[in-house]
């Protein structure tokens, strides 16, 4: 998708500056700062309940952090109030640069698979129905569910729903694709296929991917940037080779599936 608000090419895709978020007494993000460059594939690892999904939601303005800045192509999403018309317009402009794969797919139940994937195209592009048809077919073929075009989400398996949701997330060639647990619910072969699709889209269209995952194999395969959240803090973040070489104890525990280490089972 073409940039709606052109930004200088040296502006990073995402910058989090000292972002914190609590729910009641529970702090899920505690002073998180990081920079994700354009065209990178960043994988955020971490145990359940450490704020990975909250981080994604802060990026698209579904949640407001208690403090800190969330810059998306230089626009501070955290400063935009969706209830104010002027802010909403800017927030929607930022959101149009995202595609998001939700953990449970979040497909619209009363639309067919085809209509689900066509939905963002019909809303945000001037494509003809013929062009939309071709593009939807291409996206569905890429994720291996071309045969299910006319089915409803309730007729699909969990893995198929996830793949359709991924097709919808990349429907209008967004600048940034957010993936919340893309491989959960998928068999290993389909999971690997999805990883290869991410690499191909990254290579051919230059999309930036921010992936929340528990899947260490996926992280090793696709990530050029790795981060690890534990107990609300970003314990390590940087280029994949460096992070793997440093082998932070929390990361080591995660990769070796050890029950003893800095990550506590609550």
């Amino acid at each position, binding site marked *: 998708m073409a940039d709606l608000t052109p930004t200088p090419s040296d502006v990073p895709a995402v910058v989090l500056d000292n972002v914190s978020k609590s729910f009641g007494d529970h702090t899920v993000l505690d002073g998180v700062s990081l920079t994700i460059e354009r065209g990178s594939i960043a994988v955020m690892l971490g145990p359940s309940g450490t704020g990975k999904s909250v981080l994604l939601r802060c990026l698209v303005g579904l949640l407001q952090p208690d403090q800190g800045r969330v810059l998306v192509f230089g626009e501070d999403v955290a400063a935009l109030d969706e209830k104010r018309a002027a802010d909403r317009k800017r927030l929607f402009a930022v959101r149009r640069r995202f595609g*998001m794969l*939700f953990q449970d797919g979040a497909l619209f*139940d009363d639309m067919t698979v085809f209509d689900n994937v066509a939905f963002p195209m019909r*809303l945000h592009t001037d494509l003809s129905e013929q062009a939309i048809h071709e593009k939807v077919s291409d996206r569905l073929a890429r994720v291996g569910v071309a045969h299910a075009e006319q089915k409803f989400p309730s007729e699909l398996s969990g893995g198929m729903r996830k793949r359709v949701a991924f097709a919808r997330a990349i429907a209008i060639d967004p600048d940034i694709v957010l993936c919340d647990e893309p491989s959960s619910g998928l068999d290993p072969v389909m999971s690997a296929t999805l990883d290869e699709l991410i690499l191909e889209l990254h290579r051919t269209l230059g999309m930036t991917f921010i992936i929340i995952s528990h899947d260490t194999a996926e992280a090793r395969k696709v990530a050029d940037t790795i981060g690890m959240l534990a107990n609300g803090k970003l314990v390590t973040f940087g280029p994949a080779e460096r992070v793997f070489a440093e082998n932070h104890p929390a990361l080591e525990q995660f990769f070796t599936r050890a029950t003893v280490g800095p990550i506590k089972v609550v």
Partner: protein
Amino acid sequence: MDKLLRSLHTLGALVMFAGQVARSAFTPPVYLGETLRMMNVLAKRCVIPVSLAVAPVGAVISLQGISIFKLFGAERMLSSFLGTAIFREYSPALASVMVAAQAGSSIAARIGTMKVRGQIDALAVMSVDPVRFVVVPGVLACVIVAPLLSVLTNLLGVFSGWVFAVPIGGVDHGAFMEHLTAQITPADLWIGLGKCSLFGLGVGLIAGYLGLNVGKGAADVGKAANDTVVSTIVLILLVDYAVSMALLGAGL
């Protein structure tokens, strides 16, 4: 005291929500296709239950009324009472109550399910205002479909009343029609349709509000649908009473 404050808070939130819906309904983008789709869904869902609810009422009015009117030798005038009761009161109230039961619960359940399953968030991430896309079409559909159903129930109610008055009760057909057309004025029709639209607006707003503010699980979705039905039916009956009193007071 806490309960009173909570109720006032909910009422205030509902008024704010109504303002948001009104702004969204009259400013672009308006999702006309989604509104037409909702109208189609709601009309199909409501037409049979509404018909089944209103038709026996006309029959009962004739059945009970004819014995009373006979005491005064005025059974020829039964249709005056039947027409007024059906057009102004029973048809709008029953059509709206059935819209609340069928359409209100289904709108609240649909929006609540979308919320619980993350589809409302998905809309927001796709830069689609959920109020515009899922609430406004439901509200508009209720406002338009409820009076259309009322037209149908007017006819059905009067017809079933005619069956029990004329062929069964022995009232003269000519006299029945004469008193019916003499008594029913265009104002009766418009008042009935206007009440239906007003009640439809209430059903759509409450269903949308409760659906969007649902809790986190399937049980909460069921509760939102149930609360929609109970609160809108109570509201319809109370407002119906108040509107009827006000109109009679105003000589209408």
